[in-house]
């Protein structure tokens, strides 16, 4: 199974340390100095969006140059082969393939083009500049000695590496959680049933009459 980095939005504070670390870690190892991770900040949620390292990677299957390959438990882009056609960026179901420019790039076609505008999305704007000659995807910092740098850099521990063991652990935790919730609900139902049975035996009907029984006050009125 492919491993991948997951982010926990309940911990993410949207500081961007992962993005900075990602591009810096790759620059140090002579790879494109672009972030392989992006940050989404909406009103409700802030989360880092990462490559899911799909098993049947769509980016790999559309690449006309064979520049994207499966290396063990992750994907790898051959930056020298990539021509920057951005078909992979178009088909990625998570938008996790990023166009990148070499650090020496000068913008050729549209010097004052913005990153995106109100009427066209970032991908189209990046194409227009003609400087984005290769794509980058998360390679789990394969060249770094001790695993993905973004995980180490996250100040709130919102990022973690998901492998088969961690996935199984998560599934077990969720099952236990669900069982606990069900048992609490069942316990509540049992208690209510016992209460109703006791009331029926007494003939008082306290629980049922609590809301719609006439008050004493109404009886004293003429």
């Amino acid at each position, binding site marked *: 199974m492919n491993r991948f980095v*997951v*982010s*926990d*939005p*309940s911990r993410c504070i949207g500081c961007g340390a992962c993005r900075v670390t990602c591009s810096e870690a790759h620059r140090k190892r002579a790879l494109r100095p672009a972030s392989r991770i*992006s940050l*989404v900040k*909406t009103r*409700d*949620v*802030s*989360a880092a*969006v990462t490559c899911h390292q*799909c098993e*049947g*990677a*769509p980016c790999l*299957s*559309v690449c*006309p*140059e*064979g520049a994207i390959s499966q290396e063990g438990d992750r994907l790898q882009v*051959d*930056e*020298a*082969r990539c*021509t*920057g*056609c*951005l*078909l992979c*960026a*178009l*088909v*990625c*179901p*998570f*938008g996790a393939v990023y166009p990148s420019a*070499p650090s020496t*790039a*000068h913008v*050729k*076609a*549209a010097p004052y083009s913005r990153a*995106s*505008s*109100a*009427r*066209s*999305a*970032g*991908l*189209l*704007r990046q*194409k*227009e500049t*003609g*400087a*984005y*000659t290769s794509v980058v995807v998360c390679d789990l910092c394969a060249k770094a000695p001790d695993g993905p740098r973004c995980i180490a850099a996250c100040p709130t521990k919102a990022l973690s590496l998901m492998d088969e063991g961690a996935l199984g652990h998560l599934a077990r935790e969720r099952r236990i959680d669900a069982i606990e919730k069900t048992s609490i609900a069942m316990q509540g139902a049992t208690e209510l049933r016992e209460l109703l049975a006791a009331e029926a035996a007494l003939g008082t009907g306290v629980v049922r009459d609590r809301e719609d029984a006439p008050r004493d006050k109404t009886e004293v009125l003429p």
Partner: protein
Amino acid sequence: MSPLKPRVPNPISQGASRAVRPHGAAGGNGIGAPAVPQGKPHHDFGRCIACAACAVACDTSAIRIFVDEDEGMLVWTLDLTDCTWCGRCAAVCPTGAMGLVADSACRPAAFADDPEPPKRCLFALRECASCGRYYATNKEVEYASSLLEQEEGNADAARALALTGICPDCKRTHDAKAAGRRAGMKRF
């Protein structure tokens, strides 16, 4: 636009292992550049998907693209007066729309000799189904979809195929929101 998956080995792919492609001002015919067949380029509008790989590869900006947001069009232009016949546009083209004129190989690379009017092609842009912004050309989206359709029995490709109508920005936002729901976050 060919329906078949193009796995055409090209000279840049072949030579990639020995030389990294030069970028920017370092010319296409410079020392250390991989050997690419050179010649006068010609463009087949029918097969072109306006992916702009040629515009990226072109060092002299003879091929350019512009986005015309008012018309909803992508404008692709080829001006042969700027062309150096380096042949890299043909080498990088994923669909084979850029080719080299057959008899040009034996002729010297004289670019101002035969004046031709600049070629200008228009491609309709696709609006994102989620945010309504332009994100790619219609032909490119259709081409990518046709490639994904060939991946039978691949669940990830099927999911990607279902999402080709959405721009990458929106896909990221949707992924973050899905992660938020998984984490059980409430609206504050």
